[in-house]
């Protein structure tokens, strides 16, 4: 019963909350979507903390997503022991970077008095969840080796079964508790996104790369002015 709740109910609730919540937050509380950078208050310690954490977490997240999207190719690649070794070690190294980063960030948050005035309760929860996630992730990688392979072959089918609304918890239910915690806390993380500053990675400004440098916005829409759908008869003013 508790397994069903944690492994089926919670994931669905989390994904539902994430999808609906982020859309609502973006639409109706768009103003609140910001990264809330604290670099202005403290910059030197942030350099190490933020750079390490973000470069680590981005690689790890992408890795999980790639494994989820193309599990078969991953299984093929990891059937070569050398490749498996290389990927596993790389992933573990990035995990260590992430851990070092988040520890430095938490330390900074506690030590710097200026930061206390911009720290919310949700920030503390986020720190806790991320720390749990990174530590359990590293432990899983250490105690249950070759996770890249079994993630693709055993855990991804469970995740996919959720997506197609035919949840099958049999695979994961028999897995070690460490992996269960990592999975459950991952869904908690996803469910938290709309309520925290985690929203910022959904608005990563990639579009900047292909927009022109200057941006001019007119109150008066030049095109609309000349092709007005105004139904009233008479001459439309072209100038005021």
């Amino acid at each position, binding site marked *: 019963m508790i397994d069903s709740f944690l492994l089926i109910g919670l994931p669905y609730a989390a994904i539902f909350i994430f999808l609906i919540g982020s859309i609502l937050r973006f639409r109706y509380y768009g103003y609140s979507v910001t990264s809330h950078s604290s670099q202005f208050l403290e910059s030197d310690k942030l350099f190490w903390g933020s*750079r390490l954490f973000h470069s680590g977490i981005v690689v790890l997240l992408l890795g999980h997503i790639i494994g989820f999207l193309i599990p078969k190719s991953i299984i093929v690649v990891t059937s070569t022991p050398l490749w498996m070794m290389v990927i596993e070690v790389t992933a573990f190294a990035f995990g260590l970077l992430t851990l070092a980063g988040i520890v430095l960030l938490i330390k900074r948050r506690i030590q710097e008095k200026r930061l206390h005035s911009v720290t919310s309760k949700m920030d503390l929860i986020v720190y806790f969840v991320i720390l749990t996630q990174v530590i359990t992730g590293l432990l899983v990688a250490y105690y249950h080796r070759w996770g890249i392979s079994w993630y693709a072959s055993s855990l991804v089918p469970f995740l996919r079964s959720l997506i197609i609304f035919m949840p099958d918890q049999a695979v994961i239910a028999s897995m070690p508790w460490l992996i269960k915690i990592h999975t459950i806390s991952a869904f908690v993380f996803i469910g938290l996104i709309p309520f925290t500053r985690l929203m910022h990675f959904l608005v990563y400004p990639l579009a900047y790369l292909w927009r022109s440098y*200057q*941006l001019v916005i007119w109150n008066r829409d030049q095109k609309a002015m000349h092709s007005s759908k105004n139904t009233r008869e008479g001459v*439309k*003013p072209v100038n005021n």
Partner: protein
Amino acid sequence: MDIRSQIAMVFHLDKCIGCHTCSIACKNIWTDRKGAEYMWWNNVETKPGTGYPTKWEDQKIYKGGWVKNGDKLELRVAGKPTGLTKLYHNPDMPVMDDYYEPWTYDYDHLFEAPAGSDQPTARTISLVTGEPIDVKGGPNWDDDLSGTPDYGRNDINLRNVSAEDQEAMFQLERMTMHYLPRMCNHCLNPACVAACPSGAVYKRGEDGVVLISQEKCRAWRLCVTACPYKKSYYNWSSGKSEKCLLCYPRLETGQAPACMHSCVGRIRYLGVLLYDADKIKEFASCPENELIDRQLDIYLNPFSEKVIRDAKKNGIADSTIEAAQKSPVYKFVKEWKIALPLHAEFRTMPSLFYVPPMLPVMGKMENGVYESTTTNLWGKIEESRLPLQYLANLFSAGNQDKIKEVLKKLMTVRYHRRQVTVNDIEGSLLDDAFESTGLTPDVADAIYRLTSLVKYDERFVIPAAHREEAIEMIESTDDRKGNTGFGEKKGTRRVF
């Protein structure tokens, strides 16, 4: 030709008395809030001095503005794609200590302190942490040359002023200074707009005011780095960047911005300039010594029939064209050419121009005596106490001739008015002055008049905003009627 209208400004530095009324007017309206206490959208600096934030002009430190890379014009560090690598941590962003930690005083203690043998004091309390702090600096810590060894001497504009002149500038009896009120320049080629990854910073088409959409800002902070004037500020509490909005709600109702309206010395002028937006890229990337001339070229003559025709075709209102014709800024900048942009070498094409200061009119001292005994009533411009190179570094990208031209014109106006009122100027001196500057007595009188006599309506020529009519053109007002509540952009119809 893509004609647009820009609200532009002129500050007459000879008239600035450094009273900071502009800064206070701005603060009271816009930045008296949590997270914005340290922001001075408008501030007044003493020159020579290091300004606010400290040494803002030194782009080796702050890495703002545009640079020419071969033929291409690029942002120094904040552009594409390098800007995106700075989101996690931006090494080129000023932090609170480059400005100052905002503080208040523990006034409560004056009333609540228990009886004792000492007078109770109101200690300084940080507005960030709420704890007592030792104040180490403020936005105008170097006012009137105070702390010169730390501030004035470190002014980056002294870099190519001769050691001798520098020494003279800081001798007690010879020292000289002037004020430099600063605010957002609402540039034609704004670096902050170009640097914003979210596209939150934009230039308003109708009047050229540069604004930051608070809805779209995601605190990537690159506008702070990119603006070479450091006039985009990061609100550490709301997590949004903010900047001067030229009091656009006041402009739209025909009032001058608060800083300008409150100016005690009446140094500020505001009006419309028409310009050709197609030329921005070409002119902003011209060689450094041509920057000022090319910027003047971009502004169009609002009396020319062709310009008027093209402007109307581009949807510029008749009232805006009329305002452009009456614009005091057009006269100072384009007709008389006595106002220059600040640090044109940043290549943002600022819309704020300065009439450089002539004061003190007295020249250098010889053996402790002013040179007022010479045949000249006033010292020569070349022998001005404020080294020309210093002014040139501020207002003409280092070009001394440019600044000399302007100062000579200003001097000619003085000679002329002295002659009119006191009649003790040698005829040849005045004739020479008119001849070398190309001014005529009529123009000199016009400059004198606009400088010292005109009232509010002539200093601020603000075109109507026409927002109501803009909506009328796009959709039927009958449909629009009753759609929304007061101050609401989203509909007020009930959902669910």
